[in-house]
């Protein structure tokens, strides 16, 4: 067969190219632009090379936030993924109860971020909040505004409350897609409940779990609104995560150069970790 080279086909790529350019590349380039210059006003700008990068990579405040951020995302994944799977496994497969469960599960997902923060801010208040006041009544000294441990627990519980449903719903859809015959075969083969989970349910949920892990990692790593509303990053800097540090730097101190440099580093970290998760999970059991 003779292949006729026809380079006109490249024009077909143009719409995608334009779309990606306007939605991602051009906005990012403005950030790149700031990250390598020191800009005072329109007429006075100085090229500073990698200075801002060097500065942010050595900034102890960012190191602390980054560490907190990893601990936070790690906790979120460690709690929400197993809990989501467990909830999906216990949800009824069909009938009226299944619909009811699905609706109840979906409710937290429909609440805007800042509202979630506000809900928990009031719910957890030691003086008037149902949760906070009740705990104190029970003799448990709880105050998220003053105690680091309480602040962390509250921020984590809030995220678990808000997002575990997403993991559970994704897993539920994965479970429902398993044909009955797999369970029948497992019964014939005398598989234990654990073996059914390990060798049928988990492998069949793998694709949705991959999505769940990626989404939960990216979202929790970029979390801003809820802790900002709930604790304002406190007590002290105890719950100041990366995006809040970044906002303080960019908007609070107006250090646009370092903020831009740090934005790009932040982006690369998320990209790298997501890629690691993806690779690890898709290549886990090749031949």
């Amino acid at each position: 067969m003779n292949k006729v080279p026809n380079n006109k086909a490249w024009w077909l790529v143009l719409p995608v190219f334009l779309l990606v350019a306007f939605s991602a590349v051009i906005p990012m380039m403005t950030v790149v632009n700031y990250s390598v210059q020191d800009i005072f006003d329109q007429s006075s700008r100085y090229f500073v090379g990698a200075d801002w990068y060097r500065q942010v990579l050595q900034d102890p405040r960012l190191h602390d936030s980054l560490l907190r951020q990893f601990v936070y995302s790690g906790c979120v994944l460690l709690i929400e993924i197993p809990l989501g799977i467990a909830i999906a496994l216990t949800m009824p497969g069909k009938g009226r109860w299944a619909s009811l469960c699905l609706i109840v599960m979906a409710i937290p997902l429909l609440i805007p971020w800042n509202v979630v923060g506000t809900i928990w801010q009031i719910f957890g208040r030691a003086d008037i909040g149902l949760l906070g006041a009740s705990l104190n009544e029970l003799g448990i000294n709880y105050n998220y505004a003053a105690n680091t441990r309480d602040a962390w627990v509250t921020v984590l519980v809030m995220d678990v409350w808000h997002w575990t449903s997403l993991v559970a719903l994704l897993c539920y859809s994965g479970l429902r897609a398993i044909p009955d015959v797999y369970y029948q075969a497992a019964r014939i083969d005398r598989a234990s409940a654990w073996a059914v989970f390990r060798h049928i349910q988990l492998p069949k949920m793998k694709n949705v779990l991959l999505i769940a892990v990626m989404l939960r990692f990216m979202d929790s790593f970029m979390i801003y609104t809820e802790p900002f509303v709930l604790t304002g990053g406190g007590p002290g800097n105890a719950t100041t995560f990366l995006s809040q540090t970044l906002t303080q730097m960019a908007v609070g101190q107006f250090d646009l150069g370092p903020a831009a440099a740090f934005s790009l580093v932040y982006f690369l970290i998320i990209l790298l970790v997501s890629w690691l998760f993806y690779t690890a999970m898709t290549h886990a059991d090749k031949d």
Partner: protein
Amino acid sequence: MAEIRLQHLAHSYTRNPGSVDDYALRELEHVWAQGGAYALLGPSGCGKSTLLNIISGLLSPSHGQVLFDGKVVNELSPQARNIAQVFQFPVVYDTMSVFDNLAFPLRNQGLDEARVRSKVAEIAEVLDLGATLNKKARNLSADEKQKVSMGRGLVRDDVSAILFDEPLTVIDPHLKWKLRRKLKQIHEQFNITMIYVTHDQLEASTFADKIAVMYAGQIVQFGTPRELFERPRHTFVGYFIGSPGMNLIDVQAQPGGVGFAGVHLPLPEVVQAYLASTPATRLQVGIRPEFVQLREAPFDDAHQARVVDVEDLGTYRILTLALDGVALKVRLGEDRVIPQGQAWISFPAQWLMLYADDVLVEAGP
């Protein structure tokens, strides 16, 4: 190893079955003897899979009992019944290797690893899976997966019975034939009761010693392939088995026999007496296309018929004839001369079956 007896067995998927139509299985009695190779043959939706799942214990019957060696097992799980079952579509444990897949049922039984290894090697050899043992099961082709699926059923040799639910549906034709042979070999080697569900008469008759034909939730006949062919006990068996199926002609009772369209067929007196007393409303005679006698010229008690159509199927031909407006099929070998336009046919009494409301009227004592 067990004899499987079904007593007053019936099943309905609806909670409060009213009419017969609510039953997927109508009341039936049946015995599968220990060590037999059986086929359960019938069209889609006749209740074959329901019956199979009831035997294996995946489904609990709504009426009647399942007995293994005289013991009621209705309440027992498939594990407790020690049944192996192979399903229509391949079920493999994706993350395990082929070896682990085959070893899975044995390990669940708590067999020691050395025994497991030798059993798996044996079954892998029989099914030609030796080369793939270390591969992940997910990376196999559809027919290899189905072989793994079958292997998991065959690997346990202490089972009461192995049930196959149309296991060769996804398999290539040339492999189908090989695998059927393998199953037969395994059956002879281990002497395990095997029940094989299929809608393919060829598959059923090559695999099984005895075939149970199912129709509308009932076993309408249970017999050897030859019995099913020569003496169908139900019009459905006549129609379903054979290629083409039996000629079935509506007839009226006449003095001394039955008749249709100017043809009179005499009957023995016992049968005449039976016909006089039966409340049956529909009478049919059936004759296999293979057994209709056909010549190009008139003979003894032959009837003249018009040749409507000739179909050449290579090794044989199928003639469609019209006898006073009644259509008849006749099967002729390739060496026979095809009559042009007209033919004379007769119906040998020994191959002529009489059906009253679809059920064979037995002339015997």
